[in-house]
């Protein structure tokens, strides 16, 4: 048994390391994009359109990963795309977390009409197809970074609220909450000082997972041409362009797709790894 536990721990650690390294690399690439990018990500050059990547015949070393149909550099756009993806992940993820976890805590701890109301909203939200809901919101608010972040928060708060509500409910029934009540603490104080720290590990795990989801939602919205603007280098818009010209220039799709794939996988593995890391049985 002890052996199995050590093996499980090693597996968790390697998962955390691998996903953490990729995300760190991405952060560095995003920060240093102006230094690393060989070209201006927006510069079009119709004489350099659809150049293949470096190792193929007919490539131009100035475009290491090739260029798209307008002659924009794939590598530079992928690097700058990391900036947008990470900003969305960070801001949308945290805002969703604060709103959703807050409502979940209130519903789970206070119960009563607050819980009735919040639970009803969760149920209504669950009846919307999320992607369609996001597209609708962007159509209403107009494209742009702020709209995307607002759309993600509005759609995804239920992910946090559902889980945290249930956790807060089970925590409320514990002895330490009862003794805090006896000690004369106010209800709000108990919620913030006693219950919140105990649901915090769950919140951190959900936040990590949510960041990956935010990156995907942004990519999906850019894919249907509703993200920031058609010019800005986002992975989703590159993928949309790559999908359209897949038979002429596969590299326009492949490189942003691999980057997106690894990023989403890393966020999710980091979240799952943290979940196991916080798990008292495995610890």
């Amino acid at each position, binding site marked *: 048994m002890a052996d199995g536990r050590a093996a499980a721990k090693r597996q968790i650690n390697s998962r955390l390391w691998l996903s953490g390294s990729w995300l760190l690399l991405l952060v560095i690439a995003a920060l240093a994009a102006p230094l690393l990018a060989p070209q201006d990500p927006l510069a079009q050059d119709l004489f350099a359109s659809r150049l293949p990547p470096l190792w193929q015949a007919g490539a131009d070393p100035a475009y290491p990963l090739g260029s798209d149909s307008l002659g924009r550099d794939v590598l530079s756009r992928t690097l700058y795309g990391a900036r947008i993806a990470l900003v969305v992940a960070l801001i949308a993820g945290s805002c969703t977390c604060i709103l959703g976890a807050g409502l979940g805590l209130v519903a789970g701890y206070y119960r009563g009409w607050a819980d009735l109301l919040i639970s*009803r*909203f969760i149920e209504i939200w669950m009846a*919307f197809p999320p992607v369609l809901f996001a597209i*609708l919101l962007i159509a209403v608010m107009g494209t742009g970074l702020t709209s995307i972040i607002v759309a993600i928060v509005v759609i995804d708060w239920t992910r946090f609220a559902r889980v945290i509500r249930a956790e807060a409910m089970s925590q409320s029934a514990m002895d330490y909450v009862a003794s805090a009540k006896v000690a004369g603490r106010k209800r709000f104080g108990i919620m913030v000082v006693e219950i919140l720290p105990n649901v915090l590990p769950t919140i951190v795990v959900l936040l990590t997972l949510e960041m990956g989801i935010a990156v*995907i939602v942004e990519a999906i919205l850019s894919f249907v041409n509703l993200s920031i603007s058609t010019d800005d280098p986002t992975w989703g818009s590159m993928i949309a362009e790559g999908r359209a010209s897949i038979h002429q220039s596969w590299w326009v799709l492949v490189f942003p797709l691999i980057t*997106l794939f690894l990023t989403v996988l890393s966020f999710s593995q980091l979240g799952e790894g943290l979940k196991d890391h916080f798990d008292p049985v495995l610890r």
Partner: protein
Amino acid sequence: MTLIRTFLKRLVSMLITLIGVAVIVFFVIRIVPGNPIAMMLPPGAGEEDIARLKALYGFDKTLPEQFLIWGKGILAGDFGTSITTRQPVMSLVLGRLPATLELSIMALVMAVALGGALALAGTRQRGGKTEAVIDVTNGISLSVPDFLWGLLFILLFGVLWPVFHISGRVSPALDLPFVTNFYLFESLLRLRFDIWLDLVSHMFMPALALAIPLAAIIAQLLKQSLKETMHLDYVTLARTKGYSETHVILREALPNAILPTLTLVGVQFTFLIGGTVIIERLFSYEGLGNMAIDAVINRDLPLIQGIVILFAVIFTSVNLLVDLTYALLNPRLRHG
């Protein structure tokens, strides 16, 4: 008795949810800047034409009035008229629904088959290398959403090794003799296997993309419950009776381990249906989701409303069905 009461309670709750969805979608899409009428007018249309067109679609009334008219229409089975196509929303939406249902059900079948097989294989080979491989594959499949799987399949099986069609529902050159829009089903009934194969070749990749995350969830949960069941006394007894390991897993452990997975599959199935929106777009598959995105881009308000309501009805009905099945199958709730 309690079962009926639970059912009625859930039904009322479902109706409240649907009304909530209707209110939200109705008012949210009316914050849209830009008049939907403006897009339909030919250049040089006069004030009078605008007013007439507005009156035709009811946009001259106040919002609460519009909502009431729309609500009354729904109760009578009339979802209004699409602005872009000028056809009844109801017939447009019902015309596309079969395509989405066929895709979702095919994906569900694939997910259950794939996930179930992985869970059984993992239980049979537990503790070995095979189980470790299955666990890692599961982890990756769970982490990556349908959208990315779809793109990956387009690259692999549409371009690198082109074995499947990457866009559309059926080859346009084919002459379709169908009376319903359930092409996949009807082609089987009519024994038109050529069309059936063509349909499957179009559906295979989008369905698989939708199926993979669900298959991973099924595999994970079913394997977990199977493992727990395998330690129970009655399973050990069956083993001492000399039954083979495969028999023990399939006949003794599986029936008892399947209930938690069954409820989960129901809930996850609604997520899968939600995923069809972007997957249909990705594969240019002519279903509801693809029509919905076009409707949003064209600001076709009545059509958007109709599609969102239909999705909400599907989601809530699936959940209701799952709850009922669970209540029927679980003896504790049945007699509770």
